[in-house]
């Protein structure tokens, strides 16, 4: 079988240079099969698909800039006196870690730039992962068969925050030291093992001399390795599933419509990497991020007002601020059986984040259970066409934002000249009321948009042209949509509530009844897509002439 080419079957000779290279590689390592599979693979195109790309590219930039920084950074907490070129800190006692961070900023050429690139891309990384997950949630892309990839995405979100926080602490400046102090306080509030974890993490009492070295190892080895592993799994599953596509003419769950990978899609996606890099470079060049030299070395005594964590930790910090320590005269911190239950720290630190991530990880299964929808979905939902899901998402988003805003309660108070206490009281109220309002408002907006779509599909779009009819009546001319645009507005599913069904034993159990209730809650408010019969009826109403004249107008305006 592996006989060499005989004279009667001459070896393949490629005609082009590219062909010869392809042939060279293929004859030695194979792989033309892979190229055949991927070279022209079709990718749907939409601006909202870019967020995931931004996340991937900012991670690549993080690896590049981070590698540079490791060559100069020394994670030691040994004491030293600063001898670098930044005058105001000359001869100040500090840790070697802080001193080497200052050296990167001031004495390594391009070091400050690299630090800024690294920090900005870290912020962008977490942001793009978050926005990407919002996109996936609101368009229903997490549905079968992509539930596992959604979970991988959730893990990536947590890992990106872990990477950010471990890195944030490394320079050992005053700001990050206070961040660690808060983490220590939160850890100590954990019942039974809290003090042990704190002592193990810090190698004794806070701050000790071990923590920076340990975080460094996590930051440059363990966490990035896990992120890389998750990214590989994530992309592998994207290939297996192929990308989702937005609804529209010609698109259904059985096909994928878009541009071939080579050359258009690859060029756009590849070019986009450089654009992301360019934008990060611009930010790094012009907007100072984390000016550690202004903060000074870590010292447990001073702290500056208006301190903020990096944005992604904000929601936890905000929750910590919102929790009252004393309600009336009742202390939230309780002593039971001679031990301290620090509920004023424990609850805000763990419960909101716990709820958010539990719902995030289980949501695909929750929705599937309620809707009993076990089909594969490759066509996305427009958010308005899944009003209840969109409303749930917005409720969660608003809840998160309230906590996030609370992390800046002091800045809100000073910027808008309002009382700090009032800001906190309002945000405490919004913590409970905000998600409810968001749910109701979002659902109404989604339904209203659906109605609007229906109206446009049936009666055409408003042209703004007013016509006076012979008998004196004024009408606005509506231009009908072409069938492609109309299909985009009507081509969706609008499931109705699914009543409780008996199980195999012919019994409707209580779980099934609960499911039916939730299904009603999920689907009872619905706007069905317009049907051809309705369109015919709408035309029969006498709008026909107007539509005809609208069409004429449209042609003329070209």
């Amino acid at each position, binding site marked *: 079988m592996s006989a060499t080419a005989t004279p009667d079957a001459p070896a393949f000779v490629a005609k082009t240079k590219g062909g010869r290279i392809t042939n060279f590689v293929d004859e030695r390592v194979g792989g033309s099969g892979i190229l055949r599979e991927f070279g022209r693979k079709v990718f749907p195109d939409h601006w909202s698909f870019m967020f995931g790309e931004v996340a991937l590219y900012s991670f690549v930039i993080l690896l590049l800039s981070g590698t540079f920084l490791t060559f100069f950074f020394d994670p030691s907490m040994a004491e030293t006196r600063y001898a670098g*070129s930044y005058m105001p800190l000359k001869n100040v006692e500090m840790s070697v870690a802080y001193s080497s961070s200052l050296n990167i900023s001031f004495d390594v050429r391009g070091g400050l730039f690299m630090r800024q690139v690294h920090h900005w891309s870290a912020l962008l990384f977490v942001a793009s992962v978050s926005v990407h997950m919002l996109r996936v949630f609101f368009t229903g892309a997490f549905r079968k068969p992509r539930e596992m990839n959604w979970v991988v995405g959730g893990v990536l979100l947590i890992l990106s925050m872990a990477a950010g926080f471990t890195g944030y602490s490394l320079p050992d400046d005053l700001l990050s030291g206070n961040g660690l102090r808060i983490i220590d306080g939160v850890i100590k509030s954990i019942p039974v093992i809290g003090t042990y974890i704190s002592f193990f993490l810090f190698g004794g009492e806070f*701050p000790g001399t071990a923590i920076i070295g340990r975080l460094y190892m996590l930051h440059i080895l363990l966490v990035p390795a896990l992120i890389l592993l998750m990214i590989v799994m994530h992309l592998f599953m994207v290939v297996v599933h192929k990308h989702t596509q937005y609804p529209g003419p010609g698109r259904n769950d059985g096909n994928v419509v878009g541009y071939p990978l080579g050359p258009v899609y690859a060029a756009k996606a590849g070019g986009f990497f450089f654009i992301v890099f360019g934008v990060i470079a611009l930010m790094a060049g012009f907007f100072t991020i984390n000016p550690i030299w202004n903060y000074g070395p870590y010292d447990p005594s001073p702290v500056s007002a208006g301190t903020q964590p990096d944005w992604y930790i904000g929601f936890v910090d905000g929750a910590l601020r919102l929790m009252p320590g004393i309600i009336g005269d009742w202390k939230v911190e309780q002593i039971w059986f001679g031990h301290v239950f620090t509920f004023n720290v424990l609850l805000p630190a763990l419960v909101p984040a716990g709820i958010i991530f539990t719902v995030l990880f289980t949501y695909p299964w929750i929705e599937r259970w309620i809707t009993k929808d076990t089909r594969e979905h490759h066509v996305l939902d427009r958010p308005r066409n899944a009003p209840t899901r969109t409303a749930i998402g917005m409720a969660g988003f608003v809840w998160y934002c309230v906590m996030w805003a609370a992390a800046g309660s002091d800045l809100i108070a000073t910027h808008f000249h309002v009382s700090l206490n009032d800001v906190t009281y309002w945000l405490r109220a919004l913590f409970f009321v905000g998600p409810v309002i968001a749910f109701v408002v979002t659902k109404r907006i989604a339904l209203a948009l659906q109605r609007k779509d229906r109206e446009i599909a049936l009666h055409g779009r408003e042209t703004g042209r007013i016509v006076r009819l012979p008998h004196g009546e004024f009408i606005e001319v509506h231009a009908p949509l072409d069938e492609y645009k109309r299909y985009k507005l009507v081509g969706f599913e609008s499931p109705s509530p699914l009543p409780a069904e008996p199980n195999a034993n012919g019994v409707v159990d209580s779980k099934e009844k609960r499911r039916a209730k939730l299904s009603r809650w999920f689907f009872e408010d619905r706007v069905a897509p317009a049907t051809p019969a309705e369109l015919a009826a709408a035309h029969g109403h006498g709008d026909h002439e107007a539509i005809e004249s609208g069409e004429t107008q449209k042609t003329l305006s070209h």
Partner: protein
Amino acid sequence: MGNHSDGSPNHSGTVATAGQNEVEKFQDPGIPPHRLRLADTDPKAAKRAERQVALLFGSSVVGTLIFLVAYFAIDLGDDTSIATIRLQNALLGIGTAFAMLGIGTGIVHWAKALMPDHEVSEERHAIRTEEDRLAAVRIVDDIVEETGIKRRPLIRNTLLGAVALAPLPALAVFGDLGPRPDNTLAHTMWAPQDGKLKRLTRDPDGTPIKAADVTIGSAFHVIPEGLNELHEGKLNEKAKAVVLLMRLNPESLNPSPGRENWGYNGIVAYSKICTHVGCPVALYEQQTHHLLCPCHQSTFDLTQECKVIFGPASRPLPQLPIAVDSEGYLVATSDFKEPVGPSYWERDEHERNRNA
């Protein structure tokens, strides 16, 4: 196909949309007709786009040059001012931005204007075939059957037990990450050493404070005498021992029984470490006699022995009992009577032991 979930719309298994399929729906008109771009029809426009792409690539070269010039022409020496560093940083940023954006926008423009933009449709294939799945299920069943694990519970249970215990050493080896917590958290440097009371000294220079220096309305950031001379664990001690010293009109202080002589002439000292999660409570509002933690806004009222009046803290700041020594300097008469800083599991036990 017999495959119930391959995603094709006509063969889907469970349909959640009761009643939906009975209604006539709009027919999918298919992919909209392709519209030609200017560059597809007008050779001039195509040529223009080509030049634009080349120009963008050219701007990338300029960016690279800017970067190199900024890197080599601006040298950082010992006397570099921060303005020079900022200038270099900005130029490196501009250079990189041009270099990258030139390539990126050039490629994207090339793709959008000149590469074929025909949308194509490709069939999705089932992730797996029914046949494969049946085979896989059979193989798994066979494997489980051949191990006999179901028929031999003794083997299964001992294996489970062994596997459950095996990770314990892996956990145990982390046991030396830190010392076991003892009562060090309950003690600070303020405890008198060899019968000698510790003086209150200024943070950070460590000079002692005379009671006469503390005027009404003033506040001092205080560290214990001898802290700056420590060689080991200075920050650990400082993290527990920092104190705020304030002087109020003695009438506005309302010391509870047992605390009457913890202050001196209206001078009182309180731990600066927040009882919430340990930030320094560094803001003193002179007019209201409130102490405010800048991290989470816990507010403590000095006139009520630093009781929490707002925010997430639950406990008052611990008070340091102070007096004046024979030379007129402020001294701590004892350590804090309770552990300072954030709460922890054993805190109440430590407090009871201290006061026993």
